[in-house]
C-alpha cells in the first residue's frame, strides 16, 4: 500500500463543525425585519433626487440586503472557511467580469482613434 504508518484522518473532515450550529429564530426575524425595512427605504429613497448618487445608494442598499441573506439565511456567518472563500470567489469573479468589460465601454473614444 502507499504507506505503513497510520495517521489521523485530520485532512478529511476537519471542518464538519460549521453545519451543526442551529441559528436561533430571533436572528432570522431580525434579519427579516431589516430586509423589509430596507426594501421600503430603497423604494422611498428612489423618489428623492440625488442626481448621480441614486444608483449608488440603491446598489449599496441592495448589497447590504444581499449580505444579510448570505450571512444569516444562508449561514455563511457560521460556516467553514472554505465555504466563505467560495462565496468571496464568486463575488470577486462577477466584479472582475463587470469591471474589466466596463473599462472597454468607459474608454471608447479616449484615444481619438475613429470607431474605438
Amino acid at each position: 500500500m502507499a504507506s505503513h504508518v497510520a495517521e489521523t484522518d485530520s485532512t478529511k473532515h476537519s471542518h464538519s463543525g460549521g453545519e451543526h450550529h442551529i441559528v436561533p429564530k430571533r436572528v432570522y426575524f431580525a434579519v427579516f425585519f431589516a430586509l423589509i425595512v430596507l426594501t421600503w427605504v430603497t423604494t422611498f429613497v428612489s423618489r428623492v433626487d440625488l442626481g448621480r448618487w441614486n444608483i449608488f445608494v440603491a446598489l449599496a442598499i441592495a448589497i447590504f440586503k444581499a449580505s444579510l441573506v448570505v450571512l444569516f439565511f444562508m449561514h455563511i456567518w457560521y460556516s467553514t472557511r472554505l465555504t466563505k472563500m467560495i462565496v468571496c470567489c464568486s463575488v470577486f469573479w462577477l466584479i472582475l467580469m463587470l469591471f474589466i468589460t466596463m473599462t472597454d465601454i468607459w474608454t471608447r473614444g479616449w484615444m481619438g482613434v475613429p470607431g474605438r
Partner: protein
Amino acid sequence: MASHTITPPSAAPHADEALQHHFESPEQQKDASTIGMWVFLVTEVMFFGGMFLAYFVYRQWYPAAFASASNNTSLWIGATNTTVLICSSLTMAMAVHFASLGKQKLIIVFLLLTLMLGGTFLGVKAYEYHDKWVRHEVPGHNFDCRDEAGKPCVDAGHTPLFFALYFGMTGLHATHMIVGAVIILVLIRNARKGLYTPAWYTPVELFGLYWHFVDIVWIFLFPLFYLIDRSGALK
C-alpha cells in the same frame, strides 16, 4: 493498517441509510454536499452575471431610455412583490430551522408557506408581463413605449434594450423560481413521509440555499428595473 474513521453508531437509523457508500462518514457527506451546492451557486452567480453585464453596458449608454422605460414599471407592485419574496425567504429559513429540530409538521407548514408566497410572486409577475404585453412593451413587432400621458418614452429607440433585459432577467429569475416551486413539492412529499430528521435534512437545507440565492437575485433586479429616476429628475 488503514485508519479511516469508524463511524460511531448514529441515533437515527435514517442517517446510516442515507450515507452513501463512497463517503466515510455522514459529516463528510453533508460537508461535501454543502460545498457542492455552493459551487453550483457560484455558477448561477456567473450565469445571471452575464445579463447584469449587458444591463450595465446599456444603462451606461442610454440612461434616459432606461429611466423612461423604468418609470413604466409599477413601483408599488415591485416593492410589494419584493416584500413577498423576502417573506418567502423567511419561511424557507424557518423550514430549514425546524428540519434541524425534527419538527415534522412545522417543516411542511413552512414549506407550504414558502410555496404559496413564491406562487404569489409569480402570479404578480404574470400580471405584470401581461400588462406589458397589452401596452406594447414587449420588444418585437408591435413595440411602442409610451408613458402614462401617452407620450412616447424618452429616447424611445433605445427602450427595447431595457425591456429585452427586463424580460430576459426577470424571466430567467422566474424560471428559477418555477424550478424551485417544483422542488418544494418534492420536499413536501418527502417530509410527509418523515424522511427528514435532525440527523439528515440535507436536501431541505441545500434547497434553502438555492431559494435564498434566487431571492438575492431579485434583491438586485428590483432597484435596477423599478427604481431608475423615480424622482422624475431626468425628465
